[in-house]
């Protein structure tokens, strides 16, 4: 009799707990990164985590160990098993992750690509910097610094990749719109700092009237600075525009080498990615392509930008 009483109570308690969990049916969002642990990705992941916390959802953060695609595939499969409400993912590989993403979409789980797009699967949304627009900002700034007919060096990224192509196009289009007769000396690289340094050295050797150097990424700007130092050029004698808003780039600005930087909003990429995934989980309509924008960092606002964006924590020049 007493035992029955206890069992009865237990059943009521369990039922109550069950109802409570049902009432609190909170959303579960899986954020799956590519396993990169560098500064840029620390900022993107930090932004994502913050957004998850702010929205009050159950936030699962998992990463592909050592950037291994098959591990990321397995994680996506496990998250389908886990019945998460949405997935935000920074793919290790644009094409290779597609089979698993297709299965998630088929299971009714919205998938948001963060920073890198996915080819071969129709993702719910793709959240990243619009490279053409960001490079336009860089090119417009450069246009204000020179006269028509001046010589400008542009250090490219990998031209076999969309990111490299878009940044170059964005910069050159904006610059030529104002100065159609500007002479652009191209230094081709595949995102390699040493290639940038060697190329800028050759350009400096062949021309003594270069007014400005612009780079497709901050590593290229580091190479350009090394080349200028080798030629005895002092900081600021030739203007330098970076791209990325990386800690190294902003350090160069604080030292007087860089006069402008088209900064990506790294934390915002992660945050918007997760926010978009949450919105999609709530069955709200989301844009297929979301640009997280770029910010033109100048010596006048570098300290504020570094602090607000979180980049400051990685900088040497405080």
């Amino acid at each position: 009799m007493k035992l029955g009483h206890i069992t009865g109570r237990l059943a009521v308690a369990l039922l109550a707990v069950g109802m409570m969990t049902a009432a609190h049916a909170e959303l579960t969002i899986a954020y799956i990164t590519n396993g990169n642990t560098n500064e840029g990705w620390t900022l993107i992941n930090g932004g994502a985590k913050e957004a998850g916390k702010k929205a009050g959802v159950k936030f699962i953060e998992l990463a592909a160990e050592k950037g291994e695609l098959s591990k990321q595939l397995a994680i996506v499969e496990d998250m389908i098993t886990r019945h998460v409400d949405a997935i935000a993912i920074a793919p290790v590989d644009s094409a290779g992750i597609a089979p698993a993403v297709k299965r998630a979409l088929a299971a009714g789980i919205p998938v948001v690509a963060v920073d890198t797009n996915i080819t071969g699967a129709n993702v719910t949304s793709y959240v990243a910097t619009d490279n053409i627009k960001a490079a336009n900002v860089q090119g417009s700034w450069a246009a204000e610094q020179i006269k028509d007919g001046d010589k400008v060096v542009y250090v490219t990224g990998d031209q076999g990749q969309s990111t490299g192509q878009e940044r170059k196009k964005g910069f050159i289009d904006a610059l030529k719109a104002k100065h159609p007769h500007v002479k652009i000396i191209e230094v081709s690289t595949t995102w390699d700092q040493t290639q940038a340094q060697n190329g800028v050295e050759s350009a400096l050797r062949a021309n003594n009237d270069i007014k400005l150097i612009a780079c497709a990424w901050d590593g290229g700007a580091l190479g350009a600075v090394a080349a200028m130092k080798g030629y005895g050029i002092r900081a600021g004698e030739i203007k330098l525009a970076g791209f990325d808003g990386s800690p190294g780039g902003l350090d160069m600005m604080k030292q007087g080498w860089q006069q402008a930087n088209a900064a990506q909003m790294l934390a915002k990429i992660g945050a918007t990615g997760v926010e978009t995934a949450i919105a999609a989980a709530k069955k709200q309509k989301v844009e297929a392509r979301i640009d997280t924008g770029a910010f033109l960092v100048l010596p006048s606002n570098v300290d504020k930008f570094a602090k607000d964006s979180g980049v400051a924590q990685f900088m040497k020049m405080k």
Partner: protein
Amino acid sequence: MKTLTRQEWYGALVAVLVLGIFLSIASPYFLNSRNLSNILVQASVIALLAGGQTFVILTGGVDLAVGSLTALAGAMAGYMMIKLGIDPYMAILAAFAIGAGVGLFNGYLVAFVGIPSFIVTLGGLTLWRGLAYDSTGGFDMSGLPDPFPFIGYGELFGFLPMPIVVMAVFYITMSFVLSSTKLGRYVYAIGSNEMGARQVGINVRWYKLGVYVVSGLCCALAALVLIGRMDSSSGKIAQMFELDAIAAVILGGTSLFGGRGSIIGSLLGAILITMIRNGMNLLEISQFKQMMAIGAVVIIAVWIDVVRRKRLLRK
């Protein structure tokens, strides 16, 4: 016939069952047919590599280059199909030829020249990885032709995922080779007493060469399943898979000192490692803690092996 509890793989079986019970309690998402089939699919590539690795380890050697060789075979097959437009079945043959060729190279250096397997395959680890990148120009090749989507994602009879079928057929074949062929018996003999094996007239060099060829062929098979599963291929696939493959063999109760172990243990070992990862994903445990857990499990498994060996020697 040894009783169940005396089998080398008994420990692995217990570990799989205990972990399975624990995960069933800890996560409501673990125990369902979909997840269990996922685990087997996810385990397949490591299990195939572990199968070949078992032969090598049984002879007292080790093959550290299996991840890189998998990348080489997979990247080359992908390159031939996507960039050169070669018939997929020819590309499959080429992958096996590459696996066998590299196996011959490793085996020759270990068995005939006498370089320790650790060194030959440590060099191979970066040699074959470099060749995989170099020969394919660092390109990603995606959208593989038939039969790759079927190998990676197809289901036999509409419910049995192909990677599981491949793994099952492979393990049945390998068990047979190890238990009922000359190669199998001699592998144990060489591993437990190489000098003795030579004295009774076993051609130790040729059989040692053979195990590296087996391992190379297993890499090729693993590569075909892996690129099918990813529907793409490149030189960067299968990073650090040697670690998982060796760990699977050791967890399966095969002794790192050679001569003692079983093929079925390696299958259980591969399943165990995959279950640990799957469980940690479902329990939302972060990447760094997962890395620590896998490393710790490997050390504990070798620890048990060393203690067991000492006890055997004392008897």
